[in-house]
């Protein structure tokens, strides 16, 4: 990282195989257990531990059970307000999606660099967010065509469209529909990447200005450090908001599939 004395803010996104698994493959495809995969597993394990605390099933809940029930209730309300009563069957999927992304975002923000480890945010890779977006989009398509058959295409002709306008409106609506998985996946990827780059650039300012001399360190360095503290708080907010936006848009799209217009 610090070869030639430069700090590369993009190095944090590099994927490296761990534990000598570089050559694991499945059907000719490389499936090395990378640092990215490690954080996926960590997110899954942390989520599993979190939800286990909600499995006590007591009538009067403790704090932990209350927290888990709050999260499931939050997703339930999100789905009911966007999809209606029929949205309840998507609680398992949207809950998994929201919590998995949320924990991925938050685990990637942990200050593990202080103890010599390299935190990794797999939601800053569009290979990962893209899979999640395509999954949500596929569910929308499957549910839409399953429930409404070819009538699902009426989604692209809004109510009250004059007959003459249909040839124009239909392609526009179709394109805006097809763009959804890209916007869904790229939004999360871009938000996470931008935040982490900004933090690393500012951290580079702190280090390089301190190395340049005590005067620079006290002015540029401390100013950058104060800014970093603020932006770290902002990034935690962004981590929550982006997970929420992903879950919210997924439920909005599910509403189209469930209820058409």
């Amino acid at each position, binding site marked *: 990282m610090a070869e030639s004395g430069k700090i590369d803010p*993009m*190095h944090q*996104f*590099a*994927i490296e*195989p761990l534990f000598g698994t570089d050559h694991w493959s*499945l059907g000719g*495809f*490389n*499936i*090395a*257990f*990378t640092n*990215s*995969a490690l954080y*996926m*597993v960590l*997110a*899954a394990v942390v*989520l*599993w531990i979190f*939800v*286990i605390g*909600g*499995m006590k*099933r*007591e*009538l009067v*809940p403790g704090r932990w*059970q209350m927290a*888990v*029930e709050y999260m*499931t*209730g939050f997703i*339930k309300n999100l789905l009911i307000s966007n999809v209606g009563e029929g949205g309840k069957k998507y*609680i*398992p*999927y949207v*809950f*998994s999606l929201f*919590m*998995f992304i949320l924990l991925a975002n938050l685990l990637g923000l942990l200050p593990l660099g202080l103890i010599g480890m390299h935190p990794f945010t*797999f939601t*800053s*890779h*569009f*290979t*990962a967010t893209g*899979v*999640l977006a395509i*999954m949500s989009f596929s569910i929308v398509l499957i549910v839409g065509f399953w429930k409404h058959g070819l009538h699902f295409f009426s989604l692209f002709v809004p109510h009250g469209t004059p007959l003459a306008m249909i040839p124009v409106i239909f392609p526009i609506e179709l394109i805006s529909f097809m763009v959804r998985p890209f916007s869904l996946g790229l939004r999360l*990827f871009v938000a996470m*990447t931008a935040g982490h780059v900004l933090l690393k650039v500012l951290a580079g300012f702190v280090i390089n200005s301190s190395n340049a001399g005590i005067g620079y360190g006290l002015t540029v360095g401390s100013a950058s450090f104060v800014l970093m503290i603020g932006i770290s708080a902002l990034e935690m907010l962004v981590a929550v908001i982006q997970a929420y936006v992903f879950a919210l848009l997924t439920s909005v799209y599910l509403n189209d599939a469930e209820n058409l217009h």
Partner: protein
Amino acid sequence: MPQIAQIADTYSSQIFWLLLTFGLVFFVIGLGMVPKVQGTADARDAKISGDLDAAKAAFARADEAEADYRVRDAGNRAAAQATLAKAKSDAAKATEVKLAAADAVVADKIAAAEARIKGASEAAMAEIETVAADAARDMVARISGVEASDDAARNAVKAALAHG
């Protein structure tokens, strides 16, 4: 940008591990555990609303019972007051009858006593007239030596008594 630079080397591993971990999350946590958590919350909500409904019903029953009690209480009061009024008027009537009887007895006794008093005072008057006439005759005889007749003395005494 490693996301793009490494894509050819890492896409398969990324997709594989994401599907594996998210699949486990979805099937184990999402389908296996979340419905139970949600079920507990739903059962609690149902219990709370059930208890609230029961409490409301109990309230309504209590109100009904109170209204019932008030009606019965008012009825009992009215009946008691009627009984009381009847007893009072009966007692007053009985007292009146007894008083009237006692009055009659008392009036008889008073009349008899008055008659006796009148007789006694008349007798006493007659006695006084006789004594006074005798005294008058004696006084006349002693002063003038004339024997006054009995009638003259009696008339003079009567006239003197009448003038007081």
